[in-house]
């Protein structure tokens, strides 16, 4: 009684007053009551095993695209970020325009454009997977450029001036003085971004009909007319991997910030 009174001022207390738990219970009960129990009882996950080869292959594609996003993204992102610090203005504008275009349009639009419109410009037809690889790479480069740029700008100005005062050549200045601390500070952001790209690879699968993990699962559904089991299984795989990767990143981030103190 006393405790409830003093907590009345906090939002937690507010929630208690609303009978928050009662509402939750009611919602849960409502959902359970409306479930199609005949269907739920007929659930059977075992048949997914028969499609293991297709699913594993699909997972390989998903991994390929994820790793590619990381490698291409960090490589080109770093290059573009260095470009964004150039004293030569048109180069800075070019980098800025590239980043803005790819960050402010949906990935699916970019993928479709690359797969269906770009061949009309270049005359080279690309397979769906290659289009996906190009699209993910281009977008990753844009997102990682922003991250690397933030990292570079976080390096104290004095460090760069000291390097200049010592007469270090530009190359050495970047590779030995600026980039190492810059990359160190953005490692958690880079990893979080790569988790986002892991999630985004499913768009390549469905959008361009590449047989990645999720599209393979959807194929199993279409094959067997069992939709819920394969799709739920696939969703659970993404969920568990994405969640676990997020936790690792968070732990790493905490360790890195502790190290700085």
């Amino acid at each position, binding site marked *: 009684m006393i*405790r409830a*009174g*003093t907590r*009345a001022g906090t939002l937690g207390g507010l929630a208690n007053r609303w009978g928050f738990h009662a509402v939750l219970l009611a919602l849960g009960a409502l959902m359970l009551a409306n479930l199609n129990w005949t269907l739920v009882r007929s659930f059977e996950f075992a048949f997914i095993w028969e499609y293991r080869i297709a699913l594993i292959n699909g997972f390989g594609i998903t991994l390929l695209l994820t790793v590619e996003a990381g490698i291409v993204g960090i490589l080109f992102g770093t290059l573009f970020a260095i470009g964004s610090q150039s004293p030569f203005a048109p180069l800075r504008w070019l980098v800025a325009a590239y980043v803005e275009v790819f960050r402010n349009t949906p990935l699916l639009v970019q993928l479709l454009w690359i797969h269906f419109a770009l061949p009309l410009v270049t005359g080279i037809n690309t397979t769906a997977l290659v289009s996906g690889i190009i699209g993910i790479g281009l977008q990753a480069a844009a997102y990682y450029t922003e991250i690397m740029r933030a990292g570079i700008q976080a390096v104290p100005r004095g460090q760069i001036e000291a390097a200049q005062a010592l007469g270090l050549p530009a190359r050495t200045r970047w590779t030995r003085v600026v980039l190492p601390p810059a990359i160190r500070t953005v490692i958690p952001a880079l990893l979080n971004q790569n988790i986002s790209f892991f999630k985004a690879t499913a768009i390549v699968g469905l959008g361009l009909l590449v047989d990645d993990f999720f599209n393979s699962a959807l194929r199993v559904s279409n094959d067997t007319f069992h939709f819920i089991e394969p799709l739920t299984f696939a969703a659970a795989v993404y969920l568990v991997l994405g969640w676990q990767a997020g936790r690792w990143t968070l732990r790493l981030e905490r360790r890195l910030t502790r190290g700085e103190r």
Partner: protein
Amino acid sequence: MTETAQDSANGANGAKEGDPIVLCRDVVKRFGDFTALDAVSTEVRVGEVVCIVGPSGGGKSTFLRMINGLEGIDGGEIVVDGIHLPGGKKDIQNVRREVGMVFQSFNLFMHMSVRQNLILAPMTARGLGRKEADDRAERLLERVGIGDQIDKYPSQLSGGQQQRVAIARALAMEPRVMLFDEPTSALDPEMIKEVLDVMRELAESGMTMLVVTHEMGFAREVAGRVLFMADGQILVDAPPERFFSEAEDERQANFLSKIL
């Protein structure tokens, strides 16, 4: 003031000059295993000014916050003008209308102008009209000497001015008791005096005040009683002239030797 039947059973009864207005009986506060207040008993009469001094961590602030219902009570009771704590939400709300509080870090609402800071509580908790609340705000700001700052925002004021606004904000509720939790500890030295002057004027006007402070000069000059708190207990309760001349407790002597 009495709105419901419940209130009249446990409500403000309008203590007169000299009557006890804050009564504490064996008040206990625990944080987990740590006992912050260990059976504290005292009383404060209408018009009295009581300064609470002592080493940090001794329970002074916790004690003050409990009188205003900001901390729950784990044992014993506090009676403010006839309202008993611990009690229901209504009781806590009623106590807070009787008791104003001034914090070390001012805690002004940063997104509101000085005027808005002053009229919010009277309008929402006392049901005052806009005009009345405005008049009261202007009068109180005049009283604390910053009538010309009414339409500024807290960030545009000095620390001393902010604390004076905070005092005016608490006074706008027309409390019968004012609590001050180290009101000058966060201030630059040159601003301490202007806040203490306001508090002195308030004391002279007959306001009942409980002040947690490290300003021994203020305690000596303005307080009617000085309480020494350490380890969650009131170890000494004496008028200032005796408190500062003859220490009756070893820890009090130790504390005074460090601070004077």
